[in-house]
């Protein structure tokens, strides 16, 4: 693509209220052409309302929605070049697969011969050519999902909206569809806005993720940024798992700073993490970033802990640790081989934490 930085969607200070409830609160966001953006958040956070504002099913109370540079804030859905894959698929039960997929073309009055070619091409893309004359009720959930996808893509919208389209599928099928969707999006070069509450889905598929909480964008960034450098306690906790520990700042020198947890355990963090005037800090530590060994190690942030509980989880071992000072930590250790199951309940081990893995987040 020549102009990948061209903004396809722009939200400017968009607010949407339902009665006294503010579903979307002054959200500004730019989605680039050809980008796969995911709106991620818990149910009721406003992500679906945001999607409906893009589709045109809701009109903003304040602010502006721009589509490919054009103000569409108050343009009805049938005049927007935006199509949606609905959570319930919303396939027309009285129409065959072919008629469902062709519905958008019929509305655009595309000539029959061209329409029929485009329908077949779309059905081929989702491997459903043989099922073209079936009715939706004769198909499985996964097939219906692919019909809904083909139906939304066929009119060649500028933006494709996907409202938790995979949530009704079983885990295996869902994983397959995640990869298929991502491949499809790359092939078409179409702008995708995907809504989900499933963080794993978001991390797998997205170019960028917007974490939504209480009607606002909590953080916007690529999967790695969101995961490794969460800015708020909400993001740290919602994406993956996190040990969130309250601490007070006890000293700064050069590029590092020292913080003391409530239990007395002291940790060294990167000074850049800490706002200059801060006297308190909320530390976020990913469970898999806690390095555990039997022998003492020379590294930063080394402390001793006892394994209170060990849960075998297949690829990983989940450990509940209690440090000598009494701080409780959750750690994940890779299970490297069946014969070497290193850690057991009651063992005393050495933990170490790398400076970069201690992230300071804003409390809610």
């Amino acid at each position, binding site marked *: 693509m020549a102009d990948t930085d061209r903004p396809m969607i722009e939200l400017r200070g968009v607010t949407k209220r339902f009665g006294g409830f503010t579903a979307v609160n002054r959200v500004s966001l730019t989605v680039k052409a050809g980008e796969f953006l995911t709106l991620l958040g818990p149910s009721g956070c406003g992500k679906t309302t945001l999607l409906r504002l893009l*589709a*045109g*099913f809701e009109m903003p109370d304040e602010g502006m929605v721009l589509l490919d540079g054009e103000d569409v804030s108050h343009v*009805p*859905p*049938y*005049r927007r070049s*935006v*199509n*949606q894959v*609905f*959570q*319930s698929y*919303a*396939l*027309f*039960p*009285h129409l065959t697969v072919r008629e469902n997929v062709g*519905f*958008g073309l*019929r*509305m*655009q009055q595309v000539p029959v011969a061209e329409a029929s070619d485009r329908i077949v091409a779309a059905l081929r893309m989702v491997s459903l050519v043989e099922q073209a004359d079936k009715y939706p009720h004769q198909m499985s959930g996964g097939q219906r999902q692919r019909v809904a996808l083909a*139906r*939304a893509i066929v*009119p060649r919208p500028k933006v494709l909206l996907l409202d938790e389209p995979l949530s009704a599928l079983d885990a295996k099928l869902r994983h397959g569809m995640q990869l298929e969707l991502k491949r499809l999006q790359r092939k078409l070069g179409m702008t995708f806005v995907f809504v989900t509450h499933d963080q794993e889905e978001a991390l797998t598929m997205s170019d960028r993720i917007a974490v939504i909480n209480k009607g606002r964008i909590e953080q916007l960034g690529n999967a790695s940024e969101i995961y490794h450098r969460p800015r708020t306690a909400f993001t740290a906790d919602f994406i993956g798992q996190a040990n969130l520990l309250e601490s007070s700042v006890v000293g700064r020198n050069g590029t590092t700073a020292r913080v003391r947890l409530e239990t007395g355990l002291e940790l060294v963090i990167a000074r850049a993490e800490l706002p200059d005037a801060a006297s308190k800090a909320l530390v976020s530590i990913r469970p898999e970033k806690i390095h555990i060994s039997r022998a003492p190690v020379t590294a930063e942030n080394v402390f001793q802990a006892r394994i209170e509980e060990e849960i075998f989880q297949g690829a990983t071992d989940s450990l509940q640790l209690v440090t000598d000072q009494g701080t409780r930590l959750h750690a994940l250790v890779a299970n490297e081989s069946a014969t070497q199951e290193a850690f057991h309940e009651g063992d005393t081990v050495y933990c170490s934490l790398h400076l970069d893995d201690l992230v300071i987040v804003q409390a809610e």
Partner: protein
Amino acid sequence: MLAGTAPAVPVSDHNRPGWKAWALLAPMVLWLILFVVVPGLILLVYSFCERDEIGGVMFTFTWENYARVFDPVYLRIFGRSVWYAALTTAICAVVGYPVAYYIARVPETLRNKLLLLVMVPFWTSFLIRTFAWITILKQEGLLNSLVKAMGAGIGPFDLLYTPTAVVIGLVYAYLPFMILPIYGSAEKLDNSLIEAAYDLGASPVRAFSSVIVPLTMPGIAAGTLLVFVPAIGMFAITDLMGGAKVPMIGNVIQNQFLLARNWPFGAALGVVFMLMFVVTYVILQRRASRSA
């Protein structure tokens, strides 16, 4: 049959109702036998009988009653009945659809109140309501007084005892029977289907004609049946509001039984009337099962 296949099990075996089902169905079956099947058979027998001078039924076989049914006079009445009933059904559908659709789409608390309003007329006797229409439509009735009071310089309208009055009366009486089944299917309509239609570029009019109407068709069909069938045989409204000037098939049958005391001919009219429905129903049913 191929050798080695399992012995054929009667397919319908587990579909056949057991004794519990029969026990539950018994009251209705009994009712239908006593008040539908038996009277129907009596009617059928009468229709082949002759009538004596004082209006009694003589059990001698004749085709004469059926020959008379196809007299142009009666065919015209049949035709007129079908036409008025069709008109009534069409008006009920056009007037009732938006009402039913609107009720189905409002929040639930309001929905129940509106449904109650649709059913309120049933609280008063049907005859009283029809007489109320007479006081509205008659020469010096409410409508004409209102027009006069407004001083528009038009009227008075001669509405009562005209075909217009008959259709007004029929539409008024049967409108709820159109609204309720349409409401039933509109209420089940998934809102995301309508949104999907908009999303794919359907204007409100297109969304209505290509998604909403087809999906509420079962309600429209049920409403049509509930309005058309009774409207075609209605005699009270046509009698009271039509002033017996425009007889319908219902009036003719009623007259043959009560006034002319020609039961065999009345029975023949009734049988033909019933056959007309059966044939129509079978044709419609065939077409429906073929398209499904």
